[in-house]
């Protein structure tokens, strides 16, 4: 159960009129983590998504706490693989306060391996599938993660 973890600096402008980080910003945090994860795949294998790319098919977010930039200047995002299909991969992402480890959001996204020229999904190749499973979070692992969080 080894996540891919990035650290991210929040921006003053991530807060909205309510003086907390706006809900939509979490999509950007997830995006940065996802794309850096894919960049590692590309670095390790020379391809990321059969040499084509990946496209976002689904995104959800459980917001667990208000976030204030003054008290949470840095976050960490842990990315896990929860399900691997022929041409899709379902990710779970835990957004944490870097200093306190408190959970701020629990996010899920589904990426589809995508051929941008053909405008259609494409299967992951074997190397990519094997690589994705390095970050696999089993149901038992997920239960343990819940207890910790």
């Amino acid at each position, binding site marked *: 159960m080894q996540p891919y973890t990035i650290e*991210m*600096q929040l*921006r*003053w*402008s991530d807060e909205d009129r309510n003086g907390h980080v706006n809900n939509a910003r979490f999509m*950007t945090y997830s*995006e*940065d983590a996802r*794309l*850096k994860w894919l960049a590692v795949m590309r670095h390790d294998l020379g391809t990321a998504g059969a040499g084509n790319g990946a496209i976002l098919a689904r995104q959800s977010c459980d917001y667990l706490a208000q976030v204030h930039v003054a008290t949470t200047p840095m976050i960490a995002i842990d990315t896990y693989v929860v399900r691997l299909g022929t041409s899709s991969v379902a990710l779970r992402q835990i957004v944490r306060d870097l200093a306190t480890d408190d959970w701020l959001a629990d996010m899920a996204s589904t990426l589809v391996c995508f051929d941008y020229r053909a405008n259609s999904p494409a299967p992951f190749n074997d190397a990519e599938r094997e690589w994705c499973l390095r970050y696999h979070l089993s149901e038992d692992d997920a239960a343990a993660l819940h207890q910790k969080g």
Partner: protein
Amino acid sequence: MVFQTKVPLRWGDMDAYGHCNNAAFITYLEQARVHAFHSRPDDNAGVELLLSGVVVVEHTIRYRRQVPYSPIPLRILLWTDQIRSGSYTTAYQIWNDQGAQPELAATAQTLLAPINFATSRPRRLTAGEKTFLQGFGGPPD
């Protein structure tokens, strides 16, 4: 003393041209100013200035090089200039450290003014605020 800080890029800062969009640079400047305001824990004047109200009056940005997305953060040098009774200017150099040699990607100036948010009226800088701002003297060598 010139203030230096790091501002990470985000993938979403890029536009369809594959470089960080010109408008994103305004946010980089803002983030550098916020870091500067918070950089002197023994002097509250900066944080108080930020809380009591300071608004941007004018931005000038000279874009010199394209900046593609990279995990390497921008390095921003910031200093103050023309500290007057009701306004001050912040000047910047935005450095891109992605390549073998650092590259000056942009230079910029922001004219800022303290205001009273309760009355929406401009106000004067206090002596403490002026001293705080003078602490970020420049330009860099």
